[in-house]
């Protein structure tokens, strides 16, 4: 089925739908990972975005029940060069097309994804509309322009959990009670972590649990008092979609929490820390999305290959407090990849130590968080 992708600037790309009729709009971004499409599709940080994979052959190993980062597909659409209808892998439980179709998410193939990627690189990430019904370039480009802007939009509310949930043994256990009555399960030796859910990737929770954390995931809008009542050993701030500047309520909560207990933020969580510390964020031209981004840990001088997915970035010069240090830097464009506070237990990274998809080079950060909680035990 013929499909048309029209960007807001009028550029069009032609392809075919491998998931049936569709029409949708959103920001188009590219991801340079050669594997991990299922993790990408289910990553809540992609909420509101159409993702194009730069690797041309997608669907190769099918889909399975394990490699998910949330309970549903989060992207608006998947744009590829050639869909692989014959998956082959011993863990495969179905085809990508069926997976997308079941969630009514369009999958488009036949797109010159390299041309699309180059266009985004040169012109910046932009809004686009996709349709199998409206194949008129002008009309579709107009729909792209009419769609909501990424900058200034709070997409966290779309993906955050509706009520608190406990993560245990690799899955959510809904306590079914409100936070006032919540009791931490009796698990000697485990770390009690409250995780603010801005669209958390499950592998973060898996990574923390592996390090003996009991995690209570709370909606993004819970206030600081509620967190204080829970008396966690540490606070974790998750990744998530959209413009951090729009999530003002969470910034307030975080500002109040800073200094009270060890805090670790990833991706959007990191950006929100930046804002809570009085800094500013800005939108990158086309963002960092892939599994090969080189980041240097300035404390050790070592380079790690990281998984990334972000369109916004903390402006280092906007952070005036000399106690806030740049801990990690992106070696490609020298942007901020990590912050650490010299006086209070607080650190954050822009990239994804939980990988999934991507390399495991940065998993030490979870250990660092545990160490930080250990250091503040009983204080």
């Amino acid at each position, binding site marked *: 089925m013929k499909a048309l992708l029209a960007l807001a600037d009028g550029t069009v790309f032609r392809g075919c739908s491998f998931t049936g009729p569709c029409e949708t709009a959103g920001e188009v971004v590219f991801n340079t990972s*050669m594997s991990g499409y299922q993790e990408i599709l289910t990553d809540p940080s992609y909420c509101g975005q159409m993702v194009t994979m730069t690797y041309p052959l997608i669907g190769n190993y099918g889909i399975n029940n394990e490699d998910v980062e949330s309970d549903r597909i989060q992207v608006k659409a998947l744009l590829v060069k050639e869909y692989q209808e014959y998956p082959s892998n011993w863990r495969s439980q179905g085809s990508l097309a069926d997976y997308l179709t079941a969630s009514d998410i369009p999958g488009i193939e036949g797109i010159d994804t390299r041309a699309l990627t180059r266009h985004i690189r040169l012109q910046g990430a932009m809004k686009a509309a996709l349709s199998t019904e409206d194949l008129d370039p002008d009309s579709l480009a107009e729909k792209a322009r009419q769609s909501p802007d990424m900058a200034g939009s709070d997409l966290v509310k779309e993906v955050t959990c509706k009520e608190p949930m406990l993560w245990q043994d690799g899955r959510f256990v809904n306590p079914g009670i409100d936070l006032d009555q919540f009791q931490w399960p009796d698990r000697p030796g485990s770390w009690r972590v409250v995780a603010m859910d801005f669209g958390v990737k499950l592998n973060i929770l898996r990574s923390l649990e592996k390090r003996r954390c009991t995690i209570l995931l709370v909606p993004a809008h819970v206030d600081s008092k509620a967190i204080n009542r829970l008396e966690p050993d540490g606070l974790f701030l998750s990744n998530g979609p959209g413009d951090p500047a729009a999530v003002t309520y969470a910034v307030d909560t975080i500002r109040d929490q800073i200094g009270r207990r060890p805090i670790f933020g990833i991706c959007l969580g990191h950006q929100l820390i930046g804002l809570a510390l009085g800094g500013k964020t800005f939108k990158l031209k086309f963002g960092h999305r892939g599994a090969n981004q080189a980041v240097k840990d300035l404390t050790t001088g070592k380079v790690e290959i990281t998984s990334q997915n972000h369109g916004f970035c903390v402006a280092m010069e906007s952070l005036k407090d000399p106690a806030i240090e740049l801990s990690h830097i992106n070696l490609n464009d020298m942007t901020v990849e990590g912050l650490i506070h010299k006086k209070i237990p607080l650190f954050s990274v822009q990239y994804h130590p939980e990988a999934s998809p991507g390399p495991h080079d940065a998993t030490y950060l979870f250990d660092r968080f545990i160490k930080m909680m250990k250091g503040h035990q009983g204080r």
Partner: protein
Amino acid sequence: MPKRTDINKILIIGSGPIIIGQACEFDYSGTQACKALMEEGYEVVLINSNPATIMTDPETAHRTYIEPITPEIVAKIIERERPHAILPTLGGQTGLNTAAKVAETGLLEKLGVEMIGASIPVIRKAEEREQFRDAMSHISLRVPENGIAKDMDQAREVAERIGYPLIIRASFTLGGAGSGVAYNREEMEGLAKAGLDASMISEIIIEESLIGWKEYELEVMRDFKDNVVIICSIENFDPMGIHTGDSITVAPAQTLTDKEYQAMRDAAIAIIREIGVETGGSNIQFAIHPENGEMVVIEMNPRVSRSSALASKATGFPIAKIAAKLAIGYTLDEIANDITRETLASFEPTIDYCVVKIPRWTFEKFPGAEDMLTTPVKSVGETMAIGRTFKEALQKAIRSLEIGRFGLGSDTPQSQESRPDIHEIEKGLINPDSNRIFHIYEALGQGMTLKRIYELTRIDPWFLFHIQQIHDLEKRLRHMAQKGFGPGKWDLELLKKVKEYGFSDVQLASIFDTDEQTIRETRKSKGIEPVYKLVDTCAAEFEAYTPYYYSTYEQENEIRSSGKRKVVILGGGPNRIGQGIEFDYCCVHASFALRKMGIESIMVNSNPETVSTDYDTSDKLYFEPLTREDVLNIVEQERPEGIIVQFGGQTPLNISAPLAEAGVTILGTSPNSIDLAEDRDHFQDLLKKLNIEQPENGIAVNKEEAIRVADKIGYPVLVRPSFVLGGRAMEIVYDQVDLEFYMETAVKVSPGKPVLIDRFLEDATEIDVDAISDGEDTIIGGIMEHIEEAGIHSGDSACVLPSISLSREILEQIKDHTGAIVRELDVKGLMNIQYAVKEDIVYVLEVNPRASRTVPFVSKATGVPLAKLATKVIMGKYLKDLGLTREVQPSHICCKESAFPFVRFPNVDTILGPEMRSTGEVMGIDSSFGLAFAKSQLAVGQKLPLSGTVFISVKDKDKKASQGIAAMLHDAGFKIMATGGTSAFLLDHGIPNQRVNKVRQGRPHIVDMIKNGEIDLIINTTSNKRAISESYSIRRAALAFDTPYSTTIAGAKAMALAIKSMIESEFGVKTIQEYHS
């Protein structure tokens, strides 16, 4: 960490001659490393015996030793040069092994020479399997169940423990030599024995068979600060059981989820750390169980390799260059990524295309060798193709192979009768051979299901499905063809799809029973033309500055065409016997020369191993098949002044006429002259006109004609098909019976083309001449005298420059003839002529109006860069203006010797003949012929003895000549053993010797003695078929027991001279920079 300043002078060890398992990739890697170190201000000392390399060009290193790569010679060089460090990881297994041996002597310690890149303990840990197994178990990784055996008893014991089938591999060997799969006890016995023999340390490993498991490779790099990156993942199309060098491979990995890929990545990083490779690249191979994902580590190579060259070309990331920089102390984050400029080498390349590599085999060159792929590698070259889909890359790779196929199926007229039956196909699928990919296609054609094909081949269904898609589309097209619904009537979508699937115009022409040009015009009239995309290491995330392109059929064309003067150079495609690194060398020189002249050089080639396909060799690189269609597309895109076809061997020459017809300007010698030289009749007329002798000859297209021609000329005759390189299917025929047999069977090589019949000049001296002409002046580049007599293929014969036996008159005659022929053919550029001299008559054997295989050798011998000069001449310069006014006569003696792959092919006779079978060459330079020849022998692994026993058994014709040789060796203190006739003859002529039994004469016989190590040198010449088959076991035993041997009397004489020289004086070592100054 900045680069090290405590070291300044670095010795790099090259890999020597091109052999199976060790080819051009080490020239590519070595050249990159030399350049990188020179750029950094280090003094680079190089040893490599292979003159056909860019690496051994005088500009590539400061001090270049073209000397045999043996521990003794390397030690001499170290004593002379006193380098601060040795970098052993760039010269393949040869470089690594030689460095290890030198280190064992304690010399490095004594002189304070540091080994950088990989230390001896690291090399041992990676290569000695017991140590490797322990290391892996230390990091909880599984290696196949295995055991070591140092003798047959241990082998039996281990085999019983593991059970069958099992794999036997020899420790410390090249490309898996001495390895194989044993399904039963009997096979185990044979393989274990061969493996123990092949191993440098008499050790084999017997291993659990993982046949049918999925096979993967990762290219890993590490720096001093323990930063580790993965450059490329490779998935083998052919599962475990076939050497990765003989497997079709694909990059990146296709059928791993990210979870599984990351587990493999973690393992690779843990391995490089555990083994302790401090800096540089390593190749790590894994096997994955197809049904449960279990991962097993197969092996690790702590050095650059064939796969790292492939990975470099597949990603654009220059592994060898970076490895060299890491070795001198840089870290990955201190090195810029050349391609993007703004980013650093510390990242992992990501690619947005699919890469397919297919090996190139030459089983047809080795009658008796079984076309069967197993654990030891047998391919002589490879081709790589890039496409946006696997289907496109696969079909492009097939047409890049230059085996007469233009894609997968539908490239030849279909005839039902000739199709194999289903049982044959099944056999072809079960027993992998060089045509497996075509068997799969045929199986689909006969309705075999994917499931069944998978069961028989264990090739992942993901790959098979793509082949089925190609097949289904072909079927659809054939259906349309039947209905007369040709491409002119198609909708655009279908035409686009066909090209996206990688179908060539030739395939379409075959399906629609028309010609390629018609398809091309139809396609173009509908606007279906290729676009070109960049290989940029980063999937377009950053801007790329290196112009490395591939074609595909898609929306956006990224070509940035300049308005500059530009010229396209056509490369030689995959390495094969007869067309190898020598031609790549010439193409690279052409490119360098063009760039120097300010002309944009545009390289087209499909060989991933080479320097020509390095992204910074030319101003632009097109990694494309060398077919008319693909080249025309590039020409239309670039609109160059013209194309140069004379450097890439026969490949570009073969398409030069069709290209010229299509309006492409061929620079240099005109296509008409090329035709004239290759057209027998015209060329004969030309020689007659010039009054130059040629062996009597004729042409025949069938048996009867052939007999008539041979009767007229007289036997023996030399027969061969026209238009082939490397003497394919060339034979000397002594009688009518043999001639009939030849005409019936061996003409398949170029069907439809006539067979050429020449009088065979027995015992003539063969001469090779390379000359260069600008249309006005012709200068001789070099006159090489072959050691072996005419009749041995010139590519297999050893030769010496300058000539050592020809008279001044004969040499003058040769020069005059050369000048006359060059003028008559109006050659612009290079030209090669082969002559035979018999009884003071000079005959012309063959004229090639192009660069020859000997151009690099001549250039290294004389210091005259022939290919560069030729390029300038082609572009309109004159030799006198370029400073070349006369032939350069070196004061030293240079010998070229050929390297043969016989060891790889059991059941193949090592006797030399008119069919070329060598894969590579070496050069020996010294002050006398004896020493230069001795060096050339040493460089190909023939360790000539200085004392001991020589065995002589020669044909009657050679008896007289053998007398002098025997006398010389006798005087040198050798004991002589000979078979009946030879023994008697020598005794009659006063040379004491001991008679030994031929094999059929009862035991103990000569083969027993060889096996017992009682023979140190073998001289064995034979003529007729019976004698050849009788003495076959002698030659194979010589090969197996590494006993030096000669199968020609001329070769034997040269060996005797060499031995004499070696007894009288020791080898010296000297750089070519010194020789040329």
